[in-house]
């Protein structure tokens, strides 16, 4: 029987990544001066499991590497070795290296083991073994003989370990012709006998062509330490009369030959074929079999509780359905009350079911937060700062897709706080602050959104410097009167960076404008509050899920479109006095101090509206990335939550449209991509758009 090992790879990778996370967080909180037993045990177990799995599934590069890590960890946990901060660092680097190795293997890429070999060498140096030396050798094949004499004198309690001599004899019989003599001299009198004990011993002659001693050893492998077993080759003529080892033995010629199964005579197979210690040979062969599925985020681990809730809800739904079915089967008007009741139940069931299904996609934000302790530790070393990271609300749940996309912006903001926010220790001390700076990450739910705050007690934003820079760059006019808040917000403007030195840590190309844009693409927003000298708080607000959208239904001609509610600033009826028409350019709407380009949606989308007269028409002002445009529409309809469906599944992406949804009457309605529409307007010049030319 062949078992395809590749079918287990995915689970192995998943649990290995989890194991690496456990190791990492364990190592980060490990105090080399005062090692916590439970901590080091869990680190050890994680390494041990990865080693066991990788060896079993044939990933020898991982297995060899984790082997030395495990060995060192074992010595630490047994107390025979102390550990230094440098060694902890070595372990952390190794965790990174292993993660990369495993990711490469998971993606079926050619993996580069140079780093692994190098790190492994460092461990071997610490352990004092020769580099690359195998810790265990292949067991020697041992001598062969045409016949063996075996004296088997088991300890009395052998049976109580589940070892059964008869089974051993069966195995021996498979090796060759066997003669067994039982020695009952140790048998006590009946009254002195304990049923559980073994009082017999045996002498066995085993005859066959070239029986390896190792295959006999293997039969007794589990009992050799607690029993007397003497195995000697029979004389060449395999005479049955052998020198009795013990003078006291009383040979009783009882057992006849145990019949040898025909198949068992082919014993010239190498003993290691069936041996237990031969897995080393097996490993490379396993590596070739099958392929792990390339699967980055296609699967999700769901708490069993959530599934149970779902099943319960479906159960209720079935009950409601059958109730409604009964009412419908012989409906009379006096049952109308019951019908309404049933429909109410149905509505409630569906709503709860909907929520439960959405719950499945929700994961605690700790999945993202987990990598930050390590990052803060490494960066503060690199920057020569003392920083403590405080994490709160890591159990706050968030949609998996949102989570995957918020990682990079969070990393950027955190790096920014570490680099530009927190001061060097000596500066802090001079300011009368504690030497160690504190950066805190906090996540919580607030009215259908998740809020993530990154707070530091560092320098705060330099108000005057920001203003000066913005004026120099022409972002604001020289006489602009701005509140502190507006000035702080300038850091999110494209191309804005006040850092005096572009550092390795945060000032590399990507600016705060990208952070804001990424967050807006998720339907969220980011803001900053800061007090100079005291610190800053960046606050990100995100929708809990991307699959559902709060929408405004808007009609243009015969079509109904969905506007994301979050991007609507206001809607108003046009007063021509507010409109300035520029020849050859698009109309502008003067709204307080702003001039807002007017885009008739019917032109942009090429559809027939109720009216093309701008006078008294309805305009919806929307905003994306700080740019406002006014979209001319015919009618505002209801606001409702809509389920987002992809157009790309069966069709392709469409400019200005982010997806579609199905309305209550079963028809499809398209969801506007406000950022896309604004970009369309900017990209082709608002002129072209308003005159209805087709975009490239």
């Amino acid at each position, binding site marked *: *029987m*062949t*078992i395809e*090992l590749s*079918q*287990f*790879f995915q*689970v*192995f990778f*998943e*649990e290995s990544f989890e194991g690496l996370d456990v190791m990492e967080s364990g190592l980060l909180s490990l105090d080399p001066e005062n090692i916590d037993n439970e901590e080091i045990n*869990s680190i*050890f*177990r994680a390494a*041990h*499991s990865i*080693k*066991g*799995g990788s*060896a*079993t*599934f044939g990933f020898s590069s991982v*297995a060899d590497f984790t*082997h030395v890590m*495990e*060995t060192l960890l*074992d010595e630490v946990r047994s107390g025979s070795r102390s550990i230094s901060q440098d060694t902890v660092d070595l372990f952390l680097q190794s965790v990174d290296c292993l993660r990369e190795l495993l990711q490469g293997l998971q993606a079926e890429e050619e993996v580069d083991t140079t780093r692994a070999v190098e790190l492994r060498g460092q461990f071997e140096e610490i352990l004092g073994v020769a580099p690359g030396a195998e*810790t*265990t050798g292949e067991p020697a094949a041992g001598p062969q003989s045409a016949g063996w004499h075996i004296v088997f004198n088991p300890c009395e309690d052998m*049976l*109580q*370990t*589940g*070892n*059964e001599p008869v*089974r051993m004899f*069966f*195995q021996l019989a498979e090796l060759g012709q066997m003669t067994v003599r039982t020695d009952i001299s140790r048998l006590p009198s009946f009254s002195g006998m304990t049923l*559980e004990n073994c009082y017999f011993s045996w002498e066995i002659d085993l005859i066959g062509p070239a029986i390896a001693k190792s295959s006999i050893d293997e039969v007794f*492998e*589990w009992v050799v*330490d*607690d029993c007397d077993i003497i195995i000697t080759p029979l004389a060449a003529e395999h005479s049955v009369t052998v020198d009795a080892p013990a003078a006291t033995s009383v040979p009783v010629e009882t057992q006849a030959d145990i019949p040898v199964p025909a198949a068992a005579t082919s014993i010239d197979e190498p003993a290691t074929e*069936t*041996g*237990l*210690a*031969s*897995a080393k040979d*097996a*490993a490379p062969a*396993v590596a070739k079999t099958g392929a792990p599925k390339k699967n980055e985020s296609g699967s999700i681990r769901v708490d069993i509780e959530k599934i149970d809730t779902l099943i319960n809800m479906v159960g209720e739904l079935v009950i409601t359905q059958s109730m409604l079915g009964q009412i419908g089967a012989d409906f009379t008007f006096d049952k109308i009350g019951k019908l309404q009741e049933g429909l109410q139940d149905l509505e409630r069931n569906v709503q709860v079911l909907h929520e439960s299904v959405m719950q499945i996609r929700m994961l605690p934000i700790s999945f993202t937060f987990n990598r930050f302790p390590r990052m803060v530790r490494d960066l503060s070393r690199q920057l020569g700062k003392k920083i403590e990271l405080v994490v709160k609300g890591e159990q706050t749940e968030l949609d998996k897709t949102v989570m995957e996309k918020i990682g990079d912006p969070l990393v950027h903001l955190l790096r920014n706080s570490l680099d530009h926010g927190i001061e060097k220790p000596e500066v802090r001390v001079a300011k009368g602050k504690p030497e160690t700076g504190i950066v805190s990450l906090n996540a919580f739910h607030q009215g259908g959104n998740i809020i993530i705050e990154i707070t530091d007690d560092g320098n705060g934003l330099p108000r005057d410097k920001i203003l000066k820079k913005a004026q120099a760059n022409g972002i604001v006019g020289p006489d602009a009167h701005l509140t502190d808040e507006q000035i702080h917000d300038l850091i999110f403007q494209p191309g804005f960076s006040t850092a005096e030195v572009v550092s390795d840590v945060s000032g590399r190309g990507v600016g705060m404008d990208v952070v804001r844009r990424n967050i807006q693409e998720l339907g969220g927003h980011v803001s900053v509050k800061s007090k100079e000298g005291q610190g800053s708080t960046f606050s990100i607000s995100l929708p809990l899920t991307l699959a559902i959208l709060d929408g405004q239904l808007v009609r243009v001609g015969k079509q109904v479109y969905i506007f994301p509610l979050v991007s609507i600033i206001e809607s108003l009826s046009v007063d021509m006095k507010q409109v300035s028409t520029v020849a050859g350019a698009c109309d502008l709407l003067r709204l307080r101090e702003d001039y807002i380009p007017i885009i008739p949606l019917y032109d942009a989308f090429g559809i027939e509206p109720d009216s093309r007269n701008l006078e008294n028409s309805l305009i919806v002002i929307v905003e994306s990335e700080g740019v406002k445009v006014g979209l001319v529409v015919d009618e505002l309809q209801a606001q409702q939550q809509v389920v987002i469906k992809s157009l790309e599944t069966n069709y392709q992406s469409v400019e200005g449209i982010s997806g579609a949804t199905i309305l209550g009457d079963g028809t499809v309605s398209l969801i506007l991509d406000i950022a896309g529409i604004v970009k369309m307007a900017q990209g082709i010049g608002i002129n072209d758009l308003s005159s209805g030319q087709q975009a490239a």
Partner: protein
Amino acid sequence: MSKILAVDDSASMRQMISFTLKSAGFDVVEAADGIEGLNQAQQHKCDLVLSDVNMPNMDGITMTRELRGLPDYKYTPILMLTTESGGDKKSEGKNAGATGWIVKPFKPDQLLNTIKKVLG
């Protein structure tokens, strides 16, 4: 049909063992640590126990000792799944009452051959 209890904290190992045994026609009960293993052993009368050594909550050696104290498991074969580096674990396991061991890593075929040795 013989019933086998497989105890390992690694899900992939458990899957591999379980799949292999089921393919060979055994009934398989799984557990992720020693405590779960003890519970499962009491609920199902198993003919063989395979157990990892290093596990959270309760390790395989403690579980073996506990199992041997149960009347149903006095003579039941218990095999430890040990790694080659765990030399002292072998004797520790034996002292706790384990029948023998299977050295990790092992191939499905090796697992079945070893099981034949005790259930044959």
